[in-house]
C-alpha cells in the first residue's frame, strides 16, 4: 500500500444557473494512493467530469465549490489563488480530456506545444534538456521522434491521443486524470492506448484517475473505483470486490446492463426513467425513484445518503444496500 497522494474529502460543487443552483457534486470523498489507478464510473450528468474539473479548479465561471477539501500530497487546493493553482496544474496534477485529440492548436507543431507546457513549469531548462525530455516521453508512449516536427493534422487519431498523453506527462505530474480518453477512437486503437497507459503507469509509478461511462474499461484499468449517480458516490471500493459482490442497486444494474462479447448470451436488465433533476435538492436517496425493488424506508425517502462500510474497504450508500 503506497502512501496517500490525493485526498478528496466531502467535496461539494454547484453551478449557478438561471433557474437556481444545480448541485453537481454532493459530498464526494475518496483517496488515491501512490501508484494505483482509481476509476470513476457513471452516466451522463452524474458529476464525474465535474469532479475532474474541480480537482484542477478548471470549472466553468458559474461553478462554485461550496465546501470540502482537496489535498494533493498534503497541500490544500481549495481556496488557492489562481497563481498558486498554475504551479500545481500540470506539475502536480495533469489531465487528458474528453475529445483531447482536438485540443491541439492546429497551427503549431506538436513539439513546440509540448515545449510550451514544460517551459511554464521549468523555466530554467535549456532547449536541449527539453528536447531530450520530449524524446523520452515519446519513447514511453510509442511515438517516433519525428512527430515533434509535425502538425496535428498530419497525425492520425491514435497518434494524436498518444501525443496528448505525452503532453500530460511532460511535467512529471504525480496524478494524471484521464476523462474518457478513448471515446472517439476505434476499438483496436483504444486497446493500444489503454495498454500504453498501463505501461506508463507501471514505469513511472503514476497515480491515475480514470473516468468513464464504460464499465468494461474500468474493470480492466483500475484497482479501486467509485460509482456515481446524480452527483453522489453510491458505491466505492476495490474494483474486484465491486464486480464480484456489488451491493448497491444501481451498481448491480450497471453491471447487468452491459452486453459482452465473451461468455454466454444472457438477458440483460435495464432501467426506466431519467436521472433526477439536480436543481431542487430533495431529501433522501436520489436513486430510490428508479430502484426496481426499493425497501420501505427508501421509498419513503426516510434515509439520507450516507456511505456505510459493507466489507473491508468497500462502501455503499446506506439506502440501496438492502434493495432489489
Amino acid at each position, binding site marked *: 500500500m503506497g502512501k496517500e497522494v490525493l485526498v478528496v474529502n466531502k467535496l461539494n460543487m454547484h453551478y*449557478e*444557473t*438561471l433557474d437556481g443552483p444545480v448541485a453537481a457534486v454532493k459530498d464526494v470523498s475518496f483517496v488515491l494512493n501512490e501508484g494505483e489507478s482509481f476509476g470513476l464510473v457513471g452516466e451522463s450528468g452524474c458529476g464525474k467530469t465535474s469532479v475532474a474539473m474541480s480537482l484542477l479548479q478548471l470549472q466553468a*465561471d*458559474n461553478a462554485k465549490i461550496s465546501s470540502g477539501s482537496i489535498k494533493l500530497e498534503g497541500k490544500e487546493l481549495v481556496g488557492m489563488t489562481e497563481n498558486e493553482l498554475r504551479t500545481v496544474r500540470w506539475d502536480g496534477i495533469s489531465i487528458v480530456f474528453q475529445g483531447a485529440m482536438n485540443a491541439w492548436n492546429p497551427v503549431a507543431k506538436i513539439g513546440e506545444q509540448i515545449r510550451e507546457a514544460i517551459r511554464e513549469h521549468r523555466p530554467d531548462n535549456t532547449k536541449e534538456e527539453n528536447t531530450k525530455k520530449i524524446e523520452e516521453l515519446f519513447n514511453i508512449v510509442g511515438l517516433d521522434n519525428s512527430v515533434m516536427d509535425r502538425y496535428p493534422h498530419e497525425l492520425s487519431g491514435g497518434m494524436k491521443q498518444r501525443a496528448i498523453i505525452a503532453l500530460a506527462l511532460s511535467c512529471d505530474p504525480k496524478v494524471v486524470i484521464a476523462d474518457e480518453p478513448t471515446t472517439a477512437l476505434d476499438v483496436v486503437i483504444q486497446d493500444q492506448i489503454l495498454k500504453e497507459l498501463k505501461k506508463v503507469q507501471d514505469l513511472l509509478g503514476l497515480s491515475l484517475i480514470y473516468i468513464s461511462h464504460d464499465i468494461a474499461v474500468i474493470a480492466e484499468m483500475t484497482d479501486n473505483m467509485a460509482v456515481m449517480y446524480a452527483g453522489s458516490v453510491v458505491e466505492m471500493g476495490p474494483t474486484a470486490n465491486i464486480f464480484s459482490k456489488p451491493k448497491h442497486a444501481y451498481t448491480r444494474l450497471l453491471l447487468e446492463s452491459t452486453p459482452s462479447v465473451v461468455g454466454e448470451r444472457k438477458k440483460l436488465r435495464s432501467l426506466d426513467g431519467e436521472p433526477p433533476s439536480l436543481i431542487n435538492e430533495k431529501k433522501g436517496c436520489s436513486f430510490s425513484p428508479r430502484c426496481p425493488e426499493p425497501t420501505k424506508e427508501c421509498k419513503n425517502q426516510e434515509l439520507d445518503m450516507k456511505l456505510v462500510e459493507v466489507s473491508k474497504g468497500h462502501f455503499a450508500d446506506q439506502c440501496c444496500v438492502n434493495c432489489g
Partner: protein
Amino acid sequence: MSKKITQQEELQKQIRKDALRKNWKLFSQSKLGMIGLYIVCFFLFLALLQPFLFITGIWNPAIYDPVVGYDQIKAELLVIECPKEYPTEKYESYSDCPGPGEVNIKKLYMAPDLKVGEYYDTFIQPAPPSKTHLLGTDSLGRDIFSQIMEGSQVAFVLGLLSATLGVGISTILGTIAAFFGGRVDAYLMRQSDLILMLPSLPLLFIISAFAELKVWHLAVVLGVLGGLGGSVITIKSQALQVKVKPYVDSARITGGSKWQILFQHILPNVAPLALLFMVFSVTGAIASESVLSFLGLLNIDMSWGIMIYLSQTDGFIFSGLDFWWLILPAGLAVTFLAGGFYLVGRGLDEVFNPRLRKR
C-alpha cells in the same frame, strides 16, 4: 374524445405560454436588449402620440401640423443703433451688436417711422423652445416636436416595411439556393456578389434621379436592394446546415416531396435567423433615409432627415448652439432609434443563439 382534444389544446396553449415566458426571460437578461427595447418603445409612443393629440383636439392642427402648421411668434425688440467702433462698454466686438432682444435701426428698412429707443414688433422664426412649443419652431414656424413625432412615424413605416420586404426576399432566395444547389445556387450567389459590389449610396442617388422617391417607393427600393445582397449568402449557409440534419433525411426517406421539405422543415428553421436580420436592417433603413433626405434626394414631406436638410439649406447648421433645436433633436432621434433597433437585435441574438448565453 372531445374532452381529450380540449385537454390537449389546453396543454398546447400552456406549452406555448411557457415557451414565450422563457424566451422573454432570456431576452430580459440582456441589458443591451432591454435598453434597445425601451428606446424603440419610446419612439413608438411618440409616433402614436401625434395622431392622438390631433384627434382629441389637444393640439390645433393649424398651429401644430408638422408640414403646414404655422405659429406666428411675436417678440418685441428694442431699436438701437450699433456703434461704428469697437470695443465699447456694452459690446465687445462687431458681432455682439445687436444683442438678444435688440434690433439695429439700420436693418429696419420696412419701418421708417421708428426711432432709437422704441419697441419693434416682429416675428421670430425659428423660435427657441417655449411653453407652447416644447422644442421650439423651425424657420417656417412649424413645431419641432410635432416634426419629430412625424419623423418617428416615417422611420417606423420605412424601417419595418423595407426590413420585412428585404428579409422575405433573402430568406426565399437563400433557402432556394441551398436546397436546389447546382446552377440555381451558382446564379443566385453571383447575383448576390454583384449587389454586394455595388456601392449602395451612389446607387440610391442614381435611382432618385430617375424616380420620385416617396416613403413607400424608398421602402421598396431599400427592401429589394437589401434582400438581394449579402443576407442571401448568410441565410443560404444556415439553410445548408438544416438541409443535412437527420430529420430532413428522415423526411426524405419517408417519401416527402422537395417542396414539402422546403416549406415544412427548412424554412421554419431558418426563420429565427431571418428575424434577427430584419431587426438589423431596420437600422440601415433609418440611417439611409436620413442621409438621402439630407442630400435633398427624396420627395418626403417631413422626416428627421428632412429636418436636418432644411436646417442646412436655411443656413442654420453651422450656427453652433444658437439654434440647437433645429439640429440636435432630429440628429439624436436618428441615432437613438437606429441604435435602439440594433440593441434589440443584440438582445434577440442571445435568445436565438444559445452559445452566446452566459449561463
